[in-house]
């Protein structure tokens, strides 16, 4: 084809493609708009309240765990939303960290040459994976509750804590004003540790000489704040939990609902993460391990320095899926009374205001936003650990 004929064919193709795309966007957008209009009309016809005015109305109900100030008489439904969201993020965040650690350990354990360790890890994965999460949550809740003593027989923990079937009660720290120096010292210590590690690595790259990193880093992170604690005369006081007539007063309360959900989510997701890790490790060519052994690296270092970094390329995408599953599974908290976003917002607020469409739409948008954010961060990390093959 001649130059001109080629170009005009390309243009025609481009125009046709663009027209199809625009047409599709218009059709889909029109459908969505029509659906929204239809829903709004039907709601008005049925005399069901609509709109987002309920956000600023007084909530009127109480929430058992609140990470921010909340009062049933003055807080609004919007405040209840934020309380629920913080609870969800708390349990999901802690659970993600523990599940990753446990999952990596179990996954690598399953590949161990020690027959017993490998089989035990295999049993763990196969049994936990196949039991529905809701059952596991109920098991932990009832097992946790039934085994803990009543209020009268609380187990006293060293350090002033208390454990009973209402929760784990720890001494509540109260900070004096001079505590901010300790916090600044901590941040400085962390920054110093990071800089130290970077410089030690660069030195190793240049000259091959290794410097011990772990203990100096720990010393900086913990030592500096500790020195400042001494200097500012211990600006932390503790208020200890006391057994009252019905409940424990004072102290920091960790609900049994929170603990049960945490255990169940962590153990369940760790089983799946273990399989993802195992798949990643098996995906690294055996030649890498042989080469590392030929260089004289012991098994632990082989794993840590050669195999796992290369396995991360295969691990990161399914790992992202498992994290997203964990965050969505945290909504099962409604079964045991943990006040997460789903229970507080889609349960109490929806039922009191009756505005199902708006409340469910907001909840879906929130879960979608959280999932997209996690997905984005994990994809950035995955891009970094991607192995570029020659």
């Amino acid at each position: 084809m001649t130059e001109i004929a080629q170009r005009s064919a390309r243009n025609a193709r481009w125009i046709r493609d663009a027209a199809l795309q625009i047409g599709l966007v218009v059709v889909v957008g029109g459908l969505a708009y029509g659906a929204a209009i239809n829903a709004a009309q039907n709601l008005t016809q049925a005399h069901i309240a609509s709109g987002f005015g309920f956000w600023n109305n007084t909530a009127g109900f109480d929430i058992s765990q609140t990470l921010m100030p909340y009062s049933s008489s003055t807080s609004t439904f919007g405040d209840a939303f934020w309380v629920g969201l913080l609870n969800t993020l708390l349990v999901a965040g802690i659970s993600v960290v523990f599940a990753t650690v446990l999952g990596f350990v179990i996954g690598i354990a399953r590949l161990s040459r020690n027959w017993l360790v490998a089989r035990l890890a295999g049993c763990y994965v196969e049994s936990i994976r196949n039991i529905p999460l809701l059952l596991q949550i109920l098991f932990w809740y009832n097992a946790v509750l039934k085994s803990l003593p009543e209020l009268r027989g609380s187990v006293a923990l060293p350090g002033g804590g208390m454990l009973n079937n209402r929760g784990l009660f720890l001494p509540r720290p109260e900070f004096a004003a001079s505590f901010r120096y300790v916090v600044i010292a901590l941040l400085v210590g962390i920054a110093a540790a990071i800089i130290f590690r970077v410089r030690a690595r660069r030195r190793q790259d240049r000259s091959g000489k290794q410097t011990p990193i772990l203990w100096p880093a720990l010393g900086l992170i913990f030592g500096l704040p500790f020195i400042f604690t001494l200097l500012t005369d211990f600006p932390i006081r503790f208020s200890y939990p006391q057994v009252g007539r019905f409940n424990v007063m004072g102290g920091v309360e960790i609900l049994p609902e929170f603990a049960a959900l945490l255990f169940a989510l962590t153990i369940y997701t760790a089983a799946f993460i273990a399989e993802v890790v195992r798949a990643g490790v098996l995906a690294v060519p055996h030649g890498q391990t042989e080469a590392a052994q030929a260089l004289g690296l012991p098994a632990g270092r082989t794993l840590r320095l050669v195999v796992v970094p290369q396995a991360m390329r295969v691990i990161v995408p399914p790992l992202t899926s498992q994290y997203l599953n964990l965050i969505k599974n945290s909504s099962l908290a409604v079964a045991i009374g943990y006040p997460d976003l789903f229970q507080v917002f889609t349960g109490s607020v929806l039922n009191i205001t009756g505005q199902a469409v708006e409340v469910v739409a907001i909840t879906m948008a929130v879960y979608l936003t959280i999932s997209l954010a996690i997905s984005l961060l994990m994809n950035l990390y995955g891009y970094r650990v991607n192995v570029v093959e020659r």
Partner: protein
Amino acid sequence: MRCARDITSASAAPVNPLTFKRDRPQMATDGSLPRARSIAEIGARLMLKGPVMKRVATAFAIAMVLAFGTQAAFSQTLKAVTDRGQLICGANGTLAGFGRPDPQGNWTGFDVDFCRAIAAAIFNDPTKVKYVPLTAADRFTALQSGEIDVLSRNTTWTLSRDTSLGVDFASVNYYDGQGFMVHKALKVNSALELDNASVCVQQGTTTELNLADYFRANHMTLKSVTFATADEAVKAYDTGRCDSYTTDSSGLYGERLRLTDPNANIVLPEIISKEPLSPAVRQGDDAWEDIVRWTHYAMVNAEELGVNQSNVDDMLKSDAPDIRRLLGVDGQFGQAMGLTNDWAYRIIKAVGNYGESFERNVGQGSPLKIARGLNALWTKGGLQYGIPVR
């Protein structure tokens, strides 16, 4: 011929993207639904505005209709129910005395009796009912969406529910109030001693809100633990997670029977709120609401007049004008609602009068043994008052 109002609203109506037709104007300017137009009204419009031949034909038709009797108000829900051959009733599913299946699988209870009464009035067969068990969280969405025809599920009538949910409440069939149940071992004699106590409650109910209000008004600290279903809340109370369980007083007696040791729990004397329980229907179908409302009043009037399940056949031969009107021997009241004239006879024959239903399900003839109290007839010091059938 189209009148001015039709023209302006028709051109403003958007195209329905699913049918590609303009939605017919459904809303008047003040947001109310058009009334079900009676034949008389349609005829009057035609007579005043239609072309000559139409007017003559209409006059003739009106004359014929007027000559041959009254016509009933049209109810869409009644038509759907009769076409289906079955009433779909939203019920509780777990509350003893009000609505739950017995060990043989037959639904029994005070609210279930009400549904059977409506079915008897429509079909002359109280078994033509399908019961849909609903939690507090989804009961209103089930009614709004059309999944059920009537909600008979110990639901409190409040202003916010009446106005913003698109439902109407027919008539109070049980005057109740909220109370507390505590473990006897706590040695609590009054709800005012519950400062700092943990209270198990079901979310999305007026109970949750009243609880917070009561504790605040009496300057007590509340630790509430909320659950999605009453089952979970009662179970948590039973295992000792909470000191107290709160719900409507009638529910407390029912739930106490399900605890592992009913005698280890007492119901506190305080009634902290008004809970008028009423069956609910969708807004916009006034004729159906009439049927549901008058089913209740038929049962109350029957008890006032001394008509019960065993003597209703003999009462057909009575000379008392009130009884003759109630049972349909005189008057055309059934037809005015779209039912047969012996609608009340059918109800009493199938289910009995209000007192019989009460005693059988929640009164002395049942394990709950609740006294009539506020639910006695107005002539006996209670609040149940039968609006006259005439």
